[in-house]
Each structure stands twice: as C-alpha cells, then as structure tokens.
C-alpha cells in the first residue's frame, strides 16, 4: 500500500514544471484563493440562509448559488492536488512523507471528509427537500440548522488547517 501511494502521489512532471516556471506556484495559490471565495460565497451563503441570515430570501433561489460553491471547491481540489503532488519543487520530501508527517495537512483532509459526510447527511435525512420549500421569512428545521453550522465549521476548519500546513513542513 505504501509503495502504491508513494508512486501514485509522486508526479515528477508537475514538480519539474513548477520548478521550471516560477509563475506556476503563485498562479495556483491565487486560484486556490479564488476557489475559497467562491466556496464561501456559494456554500457559506446557503448555510447562512438556513441559519436565518437574509431570511427574506427563498431557499430555492439561494440554492442557485451552490454550483458556484462547487466550482470553487473543484478549483481548490485541482490547485490543492498541484501543491501536494509537486511539493518536491519546494521541499526535499516526497508527497507521501509530507502527508504522513504533517498533522495539519492530515487535519485538513479529515475536515474535507467530514464536510462531505455532513453534505451526505443533508441529503440522506431529506433536509434538502424540506429546505427547498422554505419561502421568504420561513425558518429552517432544527436539523437543517445543525447541518448548516457543521458545514460552516468544517469549511472554516479546512481553511484554518490549510493555513497551518507550512508549520508542519
């Protein structure tokens, strides 16, 4: 398993590209931040509405922002994969060793997973259908609010642990 992960995570061509072109890493960082903004603007906005912020907005209309949040997440995944697989361009370690030794990166992955489980709970519990019926001024069910708080907590946690990653390198 370790051999498989060591080989699979190592992308020398990406690392070589980043080492060769000095603009590639800052470009990835800039888009990673654009992704974070889209994620909070889309998913964070949806969570805030469920918690009663801008309550006059119908939830079905706010749902239209979710594709922007998903786009932001995908941008973060692509640029984040670039940072991990090409880490050798910046530090003399393999991606596998960095993942294994950096607690903040591990916490980030755990929180992304928890955000995914939370999203799954939103659909499995039927809350996605219930909140769609919420018109202007209507409050979300308590369970939907709990899921929204958890979503904000996990995504902010992902950002927080992402900022701590350099401490563990």
């Amino acid at each position: 398993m370790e051999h498989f992960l060591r080989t699979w995570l190592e992308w020398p061509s990406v690392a070589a590209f980043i080492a060769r072109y000095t603009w590639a890493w800052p470009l990835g960082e800039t888009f990673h931040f654009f992704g974070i903004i889209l994620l909070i603007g889309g998913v964070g906005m949806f969570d805030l509405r469920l918690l009663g912020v801008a309550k006059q907005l119908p939830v079905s209309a706010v749902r239209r922002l979710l594709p922007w949040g998903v786009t932001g997440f995908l941008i973060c995944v692509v640029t984040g994969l670039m940072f991990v697989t090409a880490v050798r361009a910046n530090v003399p370690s393999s991606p596998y060793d960095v993942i294994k030794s950096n607690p903040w990166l591990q916490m980030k992955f755990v929180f992304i997973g928890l955000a995914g489980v939370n999203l799954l709970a939103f659909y499995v519990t039927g809350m996605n259908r219930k909140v769609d019926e919420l018109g202007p001024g209507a409050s979300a069910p308590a369970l939907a609010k709990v899921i929204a708080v958890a979503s904000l907590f996990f995504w902010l946690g992902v950002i927080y642990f992402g900022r701590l990653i350099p401490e563990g390198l």
Partner: protein
Amino acid sequence: MQAFLESIENSGFATYIRETPSVLGYSTVLALHTFGMAFLVGLSGVIALRVLGVVPELPLKPLKSLMPIVIIGFWVNAITGVILTSLAIVSLSRNWDFYVKLASIVVAIVALTKMRRYAFDDPNARDDAPASPEAKRWAKTMLFFWGLAVLGGRLTAYATYIRIQSAEAVVVAIVLLLILARYLVRRSHRRPAVVHRTSPVEARG
C-alpha cells in the same frame, strides 16, 4: 521614517506574533485574514452577481441583510491585515505590489459602497427588477478590484520578476476561463431551432 518602521517591526508584539512557536501566532492571524477575505469578498460577490443579473432568481432587497457580515469580514481583515503588516513593515514599505493591494482594497470598498447605494436605496424598486446601470458598473468595478487585491496579496511574498510573470499568467488564465465560461453559457442558452411549416393557404389566413 526608517527608524519608526523598524521600531514597529521589532516591537514586542510583532516579534511575539512572528516568532512564537505556537500555532496561535502568525498562522492563526493569517487564517483569520483568510476568513475575513472569504466572507468580505464572497458575500459582496454574491450581491454583485445578483446586481449583474447572473443569478436573477435571487430577490435583490433581502441581500442587504448580508451587509453586516460583509462589514464584520472587512474589520476582521483590516485588524489582521494591520497585524500582518507590522510583522514585515520595513520590506513591505519598499514593495510596490503591497501598494497595488492597498489601492485595490480602497477602490473595491468605494465600489462596494456605491453598488450598495444604487442597488438598495430605491424603496420603490421591485425585488425581481434588473439593477440600475450604475449599480452594475460599480459591481463590475468591485469584482475587478477584489480580484486584483487577492492577486496582490498572494504575490507580496515573491521577488519582483516572479510577481510580474505570475500576474501575467493569472490574467491569461482568467481571460481563457472567461472565454470558456461565455461559450458554455451561450451553449446552454441555445435552444434547438423549431421549423414551422405552413401551407400557402394557412399563410394567407
């Protein structure tokens, strides 16, 4: 002036935040700066998208309720930004990219204030009505300068030649993405052509 800036950078507070081994120092301030940015730019961006007609389903006036969170985001960013600046104020004072970032933030905040006024201050405007051309102009200005501020913030840590190359790369990438997005939006809006065949008798009525 130089001595004054050095005294800020070498103050006990700045030295503690910069050098403490605790994660609650520099990295946490940096994370709070990112939280502030995400809420400030993310939520004001939502208002701008509605103003520009990208998400027309959203009623306009209730979006005004987001402004307190946008303002909290701004102050979190301002306070953490002052702290982060104090940690390396000597080198930042010689960094033109840092001034681009600050100027972009000022213009974006002015544009946000103007957009807010034009979008929300007409009590007779309907919620589903398109925003005024002035509001749209300020929304575009705000989005552009937020983008520039984020870019400037990312590039302050790099050498000048890397900054210039990176800024060029970001501009090229954004232009390509906008062209792709425009193509996808047009393609999704394109309806299959319906051919109505009428006989000469029907056509004459």
